[in-house]
């Protein structure tokens, strides 16, 4: 069982979600986040005050999958979230010890 954490460009969310749905993935958690990597921020000017905004809005998508589904899901995310330009984001894959579905008490792969 693994957790995929993908930081992507906000406008790519719909495409990524559709691609994951096509693979039969039935749930995910999405958060609006801010951050920066190699992509530079931008400048905002309010009359005489100029501010450099380093933290750019991104989407963090989290999904926990059985080991067998991880490779396909990562490939789908990378394929659909790619624009080829700097700032496309990153995908992290982390091991997960266990998962419990609260409603049924199911655990492990059955719970995700």
């Amino acid at each position, binding site marked *: 069982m693994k957790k995929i954490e993908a930081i992507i460009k906000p406008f790519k969310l719909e495409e990524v979600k559709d691609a994951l749905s096509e693979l039969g993935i039935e749930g995910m958690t999405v958060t609006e986040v801010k951050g920066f990597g190699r992509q530079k921020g931008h400048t*905002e*000017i*309010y*009359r*005489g*005050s100029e*501010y450099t*905004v380093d933290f750019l809005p991104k989407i963090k998508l989290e999904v926990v999958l059985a080991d067998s589904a991880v490779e396909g899901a990562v490939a789908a995310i990378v394929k659909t979230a790619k624009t080829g330009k700097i700032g496309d984001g990153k995908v992290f894959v982390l091991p997960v010890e266990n998962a419990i579905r609260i409603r049924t008490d199911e655990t492990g792969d059955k719970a995700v």
Partner: protein
Amino acid sequence: MIKKTTSVIRLLAAVASLAMLGAVTSTLHADTNAPAAAPAPAAAPTPLATPNPTNSAFASASITNQVAFLEAAHSNSDPDPSGIAYESDPGHNAWMMVASAFVLMMTLPGLALFYGGLVRSKNVLSIIAMCFGITCLVSLLWWAFGYSLVFGTSFTPSSGPSTLGYILGGSEYFFFKGVNSLPNTNYAFWVSQNVYSIFQLTFAIITPALIFGATAERMKFGAIMAFVFGWMFIVYFPLAHMVWGATGLMNGVWNAAAKIPAIDFAGGTVVHMSSGWTALILCLILGKRVGHGGKEPMMPHSLVLTFIGTALLWVGWYGFNAGSAVAADVIAANAFTTPTLAPAIGALTWPLVEWIFKGKPSVLGFCSGAVAGLVVITPACGFVNSTGAVIIGVVAGTIPYISSTIVKNIFKYDDALDTFGVHGVGGTCGALITGILVDPTVNGNLQAVATGSPANAAMSNGLITAIASHSLVVAQAKAAGITIALAVVGTVILGYLVKFTIGLRPSVEQEHQGLDIVDHGEEGYTH
């Protein structure tokens, strides 16, 4: 906490005793049954003691005089020759009531939203509370003393002008004594004095509210209210009387004995210069916001609110400028046209300058250009023609832009919302440029009366000569100088007085937390 409660109770007691004093004076006045002290022209018919829907003098007058009376209302002139007593005219009154409501709308909610959007979200309520608090406090002061000190005349002895009378009006209208629905013919032949006094109140409200854009996000609510209390007496009431009072020092249009025959149609000196220069000095006394100068981002939290505020200010400005004709007449029509053109051109110019020098035309640029255009046209709106208004728009889109971007960054003062940059500098430009672009053909009060008629004020005090010889700008510069001096000196005195008594600023920790929670115990937004 107990100490705080006691001081609030004391404040309430003071308000209550003021109200009681007002009640007593009004009763005394009713006993004597004297008509409104009218230092009007000596030959004027006696005003009706009480507002009377049926003017009995009208019914018994000849048809010729009845027509003359109605024609005087039609053309906003003196009905005196008809021999029929003064009364208010529904048309002029209707416009002035609407205009008054418009100017109040400039503060609540116009300025509150304009400034409120420009601060960080943790301070948005502090701006709203400031605007609301000032509206209510100034209303009380205006009823008790302000209207009389500005528009009364009793401090000028019958023997002739006096120094005191040049600077302050009189005591005859304290607690609105005698301020009823009949006109005060010193200021309008056809508008009820109670309507006129409320119209002028709305100016007295927005002027101090403008100041606290410069001090935004770091001045305690109590300190703001204490400062405003003193500022109205030391700066606003004297200045408004000098410029607009019948016996005022610098009232070139209406005071035949004016020492400085300057002109200010709707408040370039009284409203914008006074608040703008006060703002500069007060923000210097106060010091910068914690984290100012690039250490902390201080971006406007909602330019949408700022846009709505700007639009409300612009619409309200029609009452502010066209209403300053104190009639629905030909001069009002001109003062309605010019504050359309100037802000439109200002809001075209400011973002254009940004586009050229900074790469993008911003919405804040549109808002700033529109407000600057309105500020600069204010003293000129009833005195310049449409070409003058367009020129003023261009000036408004450039000079306040330079002052609130380049100059501010050179001297590094924290005029948070650019009150000085836009109102101080814009108001000063307006006062001076009015002296250059003045066009007497748009305003009959700037023209000599026909040969044989008694001279009007503008002839007696040298205003008409100054316009003819293109030297009016000298009088305008003197008026601007007096305004700056009064605002600076008054603010230094009051600023340090408040600083060393109740204190001006919250603690650094409180400032970080935001004034909404610290001063008002609530939040503008719960997420």
